[in-house]
């Protein structure tokens, strides 16, 4: 069954996502920051990565997705980005779409149905 890596410094989110995904039979591994995240990507070679934008510093998640994209071994892994920022105004703080290598985007709190359907679609 597919392996999913969740990279987020919020343990509650990891807990919740884990429960939902494992109930559908997915294997879930997690990392708390972008360094750990990249290490896990290399070691475990997941089939999908769920990434939070804001971790230790703003745009951490974006940097990690860029790093992943640079490495040809990991370029193909789909990336799902999650964030607490729902308001469009604060999107101004983010760089333009050009360099964001993500496949989809969801805002917290996530709904379990939506998570499952998105994961299914991306895999």
């Amino acid at each position: 069954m597919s392996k999913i890596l969740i990279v987020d410094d919020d343990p509650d989110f990891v807990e919740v996502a884990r429960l939902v995904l494992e109930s559908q039979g997915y294997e879930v591994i997690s990392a708390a920051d972008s360094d750990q995240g990249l290490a896990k990507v290399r070691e475990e070679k997941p089939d999908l990565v769920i990434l939070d934008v804001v971790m230790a510093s703003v745009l951490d998640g974006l940097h990690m997705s860029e790093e992943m994209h640079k490495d040809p071994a990991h370029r193909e892994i789909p990336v799902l980005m999650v964030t607490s920022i729902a308001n469009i105004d604060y999107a101004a703080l983010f760089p333009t779409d050009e360099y964001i290598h993500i496949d989809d985007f969801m805002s917290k709190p996530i709904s379990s149905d939506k998570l499952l359907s998105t994961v299914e679609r991306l895999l």
Partner: protein
Amino acid sequence: MGEVFRIPMEEKLSRRMGWLIRFRWGTALSELFIVLAANYLLPGVLPMLPLLATIAGLGICNTIFLLYARRLRFLEASAKQYTTFTHLQLLLDLVFLTFFLHFLGGLETPFFFFYLIYVVIASILLPRAGSFAYAGLASSFYIALLLLEWQGIIPHYNLTGFRIPVRFQQPIHIFTVSFTLASTSFVAAYFASTIIAALRDRGKELIEANLSCEVRAQELAELNVKLEELDKARSRFIYLVTHELRAPVAAIQSYLKLILEGYVPREREREFIQKAEQRALDQLALISDLLELARLEEPRAEVKMESLDLAEVLRGVSDLVRAQAEEKRLSFRVEIAPDLPPLKANLEHMKQLWTNLISNAIKYTMPGGTVAVSLTQNAEGIVGTVQDTGIGISSEDLPRIFNEFYRGENAKAMERHGTGLGLSIAKRIVETYGGKIWVESELGRGSTFTFVLPI
């Protein structure tokens, strides 16, 4: 201010000389015209040679003046030299005019009002006293001419066909003409100099206003830059707050939803409910801290200030936290220097400051460690320190440790629950009272927080 006025002044003076000299060329030409016209109308009446000689004399003088003016400009002469030169020119003008009038009928000439022209010029070029002086001089010159001609000391050139001479021998005529010229001169001097004085004042005001406008513009530009920075900082802060406030609520909602949807096995339900409850408490703490931060933004006037004994405040806070420290088997010491001066401050602020620093120390120190608090004073004011043998702060975290919501990685690892606002609040408090706060720390060895509050 003197500096500012000097240079344009000299430029102006030099230009004025040019104007005066050009005006004199005009005068000479007009006089020539008058003489030729009068000679045409009353042929043979006027003493042409002396008249032309006078006009020529004026022309020669003016050429000398022109050369001298160029010299002054080249030498960058002072205002004083220019003023002396102006006086010289005006005096000679009056002399030449007197000669001209003498040959043009003397005491019967209708042209004696020409003196007024020079009175007005004097008002424009010279300060007030100068204009009255020339009014007096002009009148004196003409009165002298009148008297000399009347007494026969110098010849009188009669304007035959224009006026009958006998009439003009009468003293009443002499007197009337003198009086008319003198009074008109002084009145003209008065009006002209008043107008010019007012114009000069406006000119000065304008220059000053301009200068202060420039200074203002500069200040405004600087303020604008600050405003932009503040605006950016504010946006960033709001962004952070939004993020931090959503996180616990999102977590609570997720946990509860999960339970409702049946993803949580029965035996783990309690665990999840507890997690949700804990997050709710975190949220409440966060909101309290945010409110505290907001309160600190209140202008000082609205906050209740008292004369506080910081030692008392410290003792009060210590008593409250002592139990916590003991529960963790920490050695808790408080040292207070004697005879500390009182500090004018708000009680709640001081309590919060101590509480935040001390509870941080207790929170991040392992059991068996030490927390030492001291309160003394030095030349700069009252000094408080909170030292611990806790987990310390890494060098990467050190510059950001006082930032809102910032928590070091090791702090998060040790204690999951924390708003990241404790030190920001402490810093705000200290800075509100004009003080400073800083930290020295070594990862794994401990930290020492120090603050100074000026008295």
